[in-house]
C-alpha cells in the first residue's frame, strides 16, 4: 500500500505472538536497506552475539516494490555469524511481492521457537507450527514438504534452511522459492538459531492505484525499457554466465584458488556451453519480465539397465566460478552436480566453493589431509568436492565445522592464510584488480554488488586513489538508493536516480522523491554507523598475500596502490560513520 508510515509485523517466535507497528521515517529511510537499518537500530543488540535470542532477523521491501518492473527484491538484515557484525543479504523469488501483498513493509523476527518450527505470516494470518520432523532434512525435501503443508501455491514465498543453517555454519544461506537465496554472511544460521526451519509468506491483498494516467504511462515506459531495449539482454540471454568467457579473456577469472586468472579449459564452462548443453528453461522473480534465472539439469544413472534421475539446478556466473573454475572443475554437468549438493545443504555457494578451493590447495601443500577432509581433495575432482560439500553443510567433523566459520578460521588453525581467498568474506569471482579487492574487502556487504569496483578496474588505467575511493563511495550511495526501493541491481542501468524520482512521484511519495539524495546519503551513513557499532574496524582489514600475486591483463597487482586504496577507503568509511545525519561530506 502507498503510505508514508512503515507497516511492520514483529513476531516473537518464543511466544508465537506478533504485533503490528506503524513506524515513521519514510522520508529518511525510504524502505529496503534504509528500513532494515532503522529496524536494527530499534530491535538489534549491537553488543550481544549474533545468536542471542533477542537479535532480530529482518526482512524489508521498499516503496516501489511490485509497483514497477524489477522492483522485486527483499532485503534481509541480521547480525552475522560470519563476523558478528551487522549485515545485509538480498534475494528475490516471490519474497518481495509476497510481503507486499501481505501488506507488510517489513517482517521482524525475534526470540527462539521452543521446537524446530515454521512461521507462516500473511495479511490474514500468523501461526507457528512445530516441524521437528523436518529438522535435518535438506532444502529440497523441506521445500517439497512445506509446499504440501501450506496453501497459496503461486502466491506465497517459502523461505527455508538446510543442514548448514541448523548447525550454525557462517556460510549458511536462506533458500527462497528454490532458485534464489539470501546467500551471503550466514542468514541461514540466524534462522537456525531461532529454531526456524521455514518461513512461509502469503499475501492476497489488492491495493488501489493512483488516479489518472501518469502511473500507467510511466509503468509502460519502464516495462518497455526492461523488455525491448538491449539494456537487459545480457541477463535475459546467456545470463550472468556470459561473464565467464569475458573475464577469462581479461585474465580476471579466478582459477584453482586464484593460482591462475585464465585457462584454455574455459571452453567447458562458458555461458554458451551451459546454455547449449545444460539449459532446461528460464525463470523469473515475481514482478520481473527479464527472467534472468537459468535452470540447468543434472542427470544421474542410479541403477543398471539405464535407470536415470534428473534434478534441476539454477546457475549463474558466481556459482559457476565458485564450484567450477575455482575448484578446477571444467565440465558443465560436473559443476551443476556440485551446485546441486550446495543447494541441498543450504550453503552459500560462493563461500562454500572458495573455502573448498583453499582446502584443495592446503591439501596440495600438505597442510591438511584426508584425516581432516575425510575425502582427499584435489582440483578437478568433482565427486570428491560433492562429498566435501555434504560434510561442510552438515559439519561432520571439527575441520568442516571450523571451515564453515570461514576460510580464515580454518587457516588460522592449519596454516595457509596467505592463500585464503577472503576479502571480508570468501571472494566473489572478480580478480580485476586493486579497486575491486579494496571494494569487496571493505564494502558494506563484502559483496561484488556493493559498488562497481570490478567495472572501475576495467575502465581506468590511471592509479588515482582519491578518485577511485570517491567512485566507490558515490556508487555505493546510488546503489543504496536502489536497494531501498527495492530494485534488482541488474536494473541499475535503467533505474537512474531521475527515473526513481519519477516513479516515487507518480505514486505520491513526493517528499521522498525530492529528498532522494539526502535520504540515500543518510541511509549510507546509518548502515556504516551500525556496522561500526557492531565491531567493524575498517583500518584493520588485511588482504591475503594471494591477491598480491595475481596477474591480470593489466599486469601484477600493484601492492602500494592497493595499500593506499585500503587506507583511504577505510578513512572514508570511518568519516561517513562519524557524520551526523544531514551533515554533508564537505562539512
Amino acid at each position, binding site marked *: 500500500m502507498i503510505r508514508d508510515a512503515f507497516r511492520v509485523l514483529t513476531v516473537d517466535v518464543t511466544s508465537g505472538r506478533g504485533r503490528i507497528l506503524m513506524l515513521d521515517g519514510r522520508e529518511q529511510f525510504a524502505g529496503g536497506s534504509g528500513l532494515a537499518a532503522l529496524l536494527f537500530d530499534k530491535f538489534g543488540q549491537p553488543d550481544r552475539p549474533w545468536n542471542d535470542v533477542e537479535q532480530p532477523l529482518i526482512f524489508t521491501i521498499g516503496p516501489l516494490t*511490485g*509497483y514497477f*518492473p524489477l522492483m522485486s527484491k527483499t532485503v534481509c538484515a541480521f547480525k552475522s555469524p560470519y563476523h558478528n557484525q551487522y549485515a545485509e543479504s538480498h534475494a528475490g523469488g516471490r519474497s518481495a*511481492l509476497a510481503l*507486499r*501483498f501481505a501488506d507488510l513493509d517489513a517482517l521482524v523476527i525475534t526470540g527462539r521457537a521452543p521446537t524446530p518450527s515454521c512461521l507462516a505470516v500473511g495479511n*490474514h494470518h500468523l501461526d507457528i507450527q512445530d516441524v521437528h520432523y523436518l529438522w535435518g532434512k535438506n532444502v529440497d525435501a523441506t*521445500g*517439497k514438504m512445506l*509446499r504440501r503443508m501450506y496453501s497459496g*501455491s*503461486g*502466491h506465497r514465498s517459502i523461505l527455508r534452511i538446510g543442514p548448514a543453517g541448523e548447525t550454525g555454519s557462517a556460510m549458511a544461506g536462506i533458500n527462497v*522459492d*528454490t*532458485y534464489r537465496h539470501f546467500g551471503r554472511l550466514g542468514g541461514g544460521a540466524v534462522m537456525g538459531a531461532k529454531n526456524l526451519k521455514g518461513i512461509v509468506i502469503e499475501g*492476497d*491483498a*489488492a*491495493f*488501489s*492505484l493512483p488516479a489518472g494516467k501518469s502511473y*500507467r504511462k510511466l*509503468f509502460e515506459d519502464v*516495462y518497455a525499457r526492461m*523488455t525491448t531495449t538491449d539494456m537487459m539482454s545480457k541477463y535475459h540471454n546467456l545470463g550472468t554466465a556470459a561473464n565467464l568467457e569475458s573475464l577469462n579473456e581479461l585474465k580476471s577469472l579466478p582459477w584453482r584458488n586464484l593460482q591462475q586468472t585464465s585457462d584454455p579449459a574455459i571452453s567447458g564452462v562458458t555461458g554458451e556451453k551451459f546454455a547449449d548443453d545444460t539449459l532446461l*528453461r*528460464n*525463470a*523469473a*522473480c*515475481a*514482478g*520481473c*519480465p*527479464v*527472467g534472468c*534465472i537459468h535452470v540447468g539439469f543434472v542427470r544421474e544413472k542410479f541403477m543398471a539397465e539405464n535407470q536415470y534421475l534428473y534434478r*534441476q539446478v539454477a546457475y549463474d556466473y558466481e556459482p559457476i566460478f565458485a564450484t567450477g573454475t575455482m575448484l578446477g572443475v571444467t565440465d558443465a554437468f560436473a559443476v551443476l552436480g556440485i551446485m546441486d549438493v550446495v543447494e541441498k545443504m543450504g550453503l552459500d555457494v560462493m563461500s562454500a566453493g572458495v573455502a573448498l578451493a583453499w582446502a584443495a590447495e592446503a591439501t596440495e601443500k600438505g597442510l591438511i589431509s584426508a584425516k581432516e577432509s575425510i575425502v582427499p581433495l584435489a582440483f578437478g575432482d568433482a565427486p570428491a568436492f560433492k562429498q566435501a560439500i555434504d560434510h561442510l553443510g552438515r559439519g561432520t567433523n571439527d575441520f568442516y565445522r571450523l571451515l564453515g566459520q570461514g576460510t580464515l578460521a580454518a587457516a588460522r588453525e592449519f596454516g595457509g592464510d596467505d592463500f585464503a581467498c577472503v576479502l571480508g568474506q570468501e571472494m566473489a569471482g572478480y580478480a580485476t584488480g586493486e579497486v575491486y579487492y579494496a571494494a569487496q574487502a571493505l564494502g558494506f556487504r563484502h559483496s561484488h554488488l556493493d559498488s562497481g569496483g570490478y567495472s572501475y578496474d576495467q575502465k581506468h588505467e590511471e592509479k588515482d586513489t582519491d578518485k577511485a575511493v570517491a567512485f566507490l563511495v558515490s556508487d555505493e550511495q546510488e546503489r543504496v538508493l536502489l536497494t531501498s526501493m527495492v530494485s534488482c541491481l541488474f536494473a541499475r542501468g535503467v533505474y537512474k536516480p531521475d527515473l526513481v524520482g519519477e516513479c516515487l512521484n507518480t505514486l505520491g511519495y513526493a517528499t521522498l522523491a525530492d529528498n532522494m539524495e539526502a535520504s540515500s546519503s543518510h541511509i549510507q551513513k546509518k548502515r556504516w554507523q551500525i556496522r561500526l557499532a557492531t565491531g567493524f574496524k575498517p583500518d584493520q582489514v588485511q588482504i591475503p598475500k594471494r591477491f598480491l600475486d595475481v596477474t591480470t591483463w593489466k599486469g601484477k597487482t600493484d601492492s602500494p596502490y592497493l595499500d593506499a586504496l585500503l587506507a583511504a577507503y577505510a578513512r572514508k568509511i570511518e568519516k561517513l560513520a562519524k557524520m551526523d545525519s544531514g551533515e554533508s561530506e564537505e562539512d
Partner: protein
Amino acid sequence: MKILTTPHMERCIGCYSCSLACARLVHRNLSWLTAGIRIKSSGGLSTGYTAVTCLACDPAPCAATCPTEAFSQRKGGGVNVKKSLCIHCGECAQACPVDAIYLDNTSDPFVCIHCGRCVDYCPHECLAMTGTASDLPGDSGKEVRP
C-alpha cells in the same frame, strides 16, 4: 469474438506480468490475485507454471448460475460481467469447473473478460488471442468435421 488462450505455458517463467497487467489495466489495482489470469506453480516450482483463467465455455455454467445477471453469456464463449449487478454471493466461482473465478475477501468475483490486454506483457508469448469456431466463415459454431 476472440478469446484469450494459453497455448505456450511451458514457456512461462513465472514473472506474473500477465496477472499484474490485468489487475492494473482492467481492475485498476495492484494485485497478483484480483485478476482474470492467475499463475500457479505446477507441482512445485521445479516443474513450471500453469495459468488459471477462463476457458470461454459456451454455455458458461457461471453465467447460468448467476442469480442477478451480473454474469451473462458472452458471444464466442466466456462471460460479460456487470459488477454493479453483483450481490457477492459467490455462486459463479462455485459453478466454474476449472476454478477460473477468484473471489476476494468480500466475495467480489474476478474473471477473465477476454480483452487481451495481458497478452503483450508476456515476455515469452505464452498467451494469445485466438478465434473460436464461431469465427470461421460460414460457420455457426457447430462442430467442424473433416
